[in-house]
């Protein structure tokens, strides 16, 4: 069924190219030569996988290419990155990972064989809205009240990843209170500890949105660069005078040294798919929105985060 769909899409797209050459991205003649493989750094069925597959399907229809999605889970995108680094920089393989894959992993574990500078970045598709949240049964509703609470008793915060743990430590240093990061096996594990009242708060990327809408949780602080639509009253840490965010972009990358013409073509194709209506619908369902920072913007965000983690972790 999916095969016939892609054939039909390809047929449609080729008609479209013939009739309106401007519809598709501007690519050098003869590109792509054969199929394009999208290597996803996470397992099938997850959030990043869903985004990659949506973008791949849209690219197939829009550009008339054959885009095959293949999963390379492991080490937070590290397995995918290591494999991507060894590929020919001819645009036939695109990696899909997260900001932390290249901005944090290389400095967290010394044996990581790559840094963010080994890749070129086509752009992003989404930014995860991280927040610090707690259940409404707790005696604090704002960041100030939470810090006040922590001053007296210390506080435990369930986290789901190294970047979240580092942020908790930054907060503890900034406010001069005892904040204990309790590492969970993932977002669901941390959420469970928080809902059961076993910890005082949790950092979350997606699951907290429904809890806030249901009135079961409040967002104490937004861990993003800007405030988020579902909790407009929750200030960012940056506003509070602590320059700390968790960057959770879904990034599309290629090996360094890709031909500029091919790179421009892929970046344009990605942008067209990220800006498409179908993708916007998917983002709507995820309570998020499509964000493409573009090649330069993506590199800038990654470089900034990488510089921070490198110096922070070196000082440990």
């Amino acid at each position: 069924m999916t095969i016939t769909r892609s054939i039909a899409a390809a047929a449609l797209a080729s008609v479209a190219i013939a009739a309106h050459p401007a519809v598709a991205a501007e690519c050098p003649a003869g590109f792509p030569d054969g199929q394009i493989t999208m290597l996803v750094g996470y397992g099938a069925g997850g959030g990043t996988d869903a985004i990659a597959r949506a973008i791949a399907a849209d690219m197939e229809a829009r550009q008339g290419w054959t885009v095959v999605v293949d999963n390379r889970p492991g080490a937070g995108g590290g397995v995918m990155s290591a494999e991507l680094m060894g590929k020919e920089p001819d645009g036939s393989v695109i990696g899909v990972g997260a900001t932390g894959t290249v901005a944090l992993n290389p400095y967290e574990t010394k044996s990581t064989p790559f840094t963010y500078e080994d890749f070129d970045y086509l752009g992003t598709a989404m930014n995860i809205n991280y927040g610090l949240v707690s259940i409404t049964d707790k005696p604090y509703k704002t960041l100030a009240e939470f810090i006040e609470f922590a001053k007296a008793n210390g506080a435990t915060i369930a986290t789901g990843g190294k970047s979240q743990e580092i942020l908790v430590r930054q907060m503890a240093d900034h406010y001069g209170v005892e904040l204990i990061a309790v590492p969970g096996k993932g977002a669901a594990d941390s959420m469970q500890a928080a809902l059961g009242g076993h910890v005082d708060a949790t950092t979350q990327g997606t699951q907290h949105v429904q809890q806030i809408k249901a009135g079961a949780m409040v967002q104490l602080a937004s861990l993003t660069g800007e405030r988020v639509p579902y909790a407009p009253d929750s200030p960012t840490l940056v506003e509070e005078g602590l320059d700390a965010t968790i960057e959770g972009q879904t990034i599309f990358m290629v090996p360094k040294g890709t031909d500029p013409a091919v790179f421009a073509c892929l970046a344009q194709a990605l942008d067209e798919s990220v800006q498409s209506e179908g993708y916007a619908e998917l983002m709507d369902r995820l309570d998020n929105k499509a964000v493409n920072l573009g090649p330069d913007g993506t590199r800038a965000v990654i470089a900034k985060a990488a510089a921070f983690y490198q110096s922070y972790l070196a000082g440990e």
Partner: protein
Amino acid sequence: MPDLATILAGAADAATLSNLFFIILGVAIGQVVGAIPGMTILMALAIAIPITYTMDTLTAIAFLISVNKGGTVGGAIPAILINTPGTPESAATALDGHPMAKKGQPMKAMRYSLYYSVFGDFWSDIVLITVAAPLAIVALKMGPVEVTALMVLAFTVITGLVGNSMVKGLIAAALGCLCASIGLDPGQGTPRFTFGSLNLYDGLPLTAMSIGLLAVAEIFHQIAKTTKATAATAPIPMSVREDDGRLTLKDLLANRYVALRATVIGTLIGAIPGLGSATAGFLSYSITKQSAKDPESFGTGDPRGIAASEAANSAVVGANLIPLLTLGIPGNIAAALLVSAFIIHGIQPGPLLFKEQGQLIYGMFAAMLVANFANLAVGQIGMRFWAFAISAPNSVIYPASLLLCFTGSYVTAGGLFGVMIMLIFGVAGYFMRLFAISPIAFIIGYVLTPELESKLIQSVLITRGDPWKVLDHPIAIALLVLSVASIVYLGPRRRKGAKKAVDQPAA
């Protein structure tokens, strides 16, 4: 709780021909995928999700849940017929299912497995439908301290599965515990035994490892021991007597308490996120064996063994939806895949789900009940097909299984690294079987340790390292007392059983 009108409207939504079609199709796909060595239900779910993009929401969810339900039935088939369980949860089923099949009663073993599986699944669905919300709140009380205590209890109870030699069983469990520490440690994220390979950062890939240890080891054994004389025979003898395959209501009712206890264990374990069906199946089997008057008959084709394992691991499937539907917390990987399916269809699992999507949820419940009956019906037809397939000669069955395991490991673990793991554990499993070092005890150590370590770290952090704080957690104390009791009460009896079982073939 929505009113009766919502419930009826939901049920009516489910009762369309196209839904029925997709439920049956889903169950059939799940059973086939579960039954093929080397393929797992997670693979089937991950792959089925994109197919549902074009379906309407209720149909899509009914289809995916049916695939999941079918998979729990199908997973027992290769475990029973050729002793190659592809997943840890069906390993306990193989312990008694395969000996029964080898005695010439493969149909009977498959029937027991099907009926008890659907029994456990059905009653856990009923629990989900009627008391999901209160049970979820109880499950939330299980914090890190309580789960740590629960894992301690699980370790003490599960020693009933160590095989004929207690010492060797414990060696196997310790090796499993050691292998579980490969990868980044759950506390501080430092690499352990990764030897510089990024592939090992997330630990050994469980699917490829289980396929190797449980399925490929047996395939290697069968191929290696083949001689010219046995080459043309089929893997198991089919009984010529018709009544060997028949199962009466009386046979089934004889194990009603075992099946009921297994269902309760499976439902409780399923309601607590993160524990999973393998834990439930092992716990139930071990408790059933240890509390039996004649533990030595387990492992020789005892229907109670099949009932204990299948009812428990299937009960997890329905119960896993309890934290998912009421709190939005997926209890295991299969449930996490369902979450992505929900989201893709515009539904956010979480505390608002019943309020905002009541009609859909009750439609889904109706579909789940229908899927249980579809599972029974498709299973009846399916087992005839599998019995036919297994009548092919060894020279086809085992090479084919080997290639499927090879390909399945390639696909799930993301490349040849997974196949390498499968090969290593295939050879290791062969020698473990030869030296009577139970691979099941190894898997138990491997499955339970990460949960214990992770929760222990969380407990230490939450209690600020003060062990006396455990006194604030009455549930944890009760579980720890139970652990001590299980060692004292079940210990001597276990040893007696083990001695008697020395002359039995190794599990």
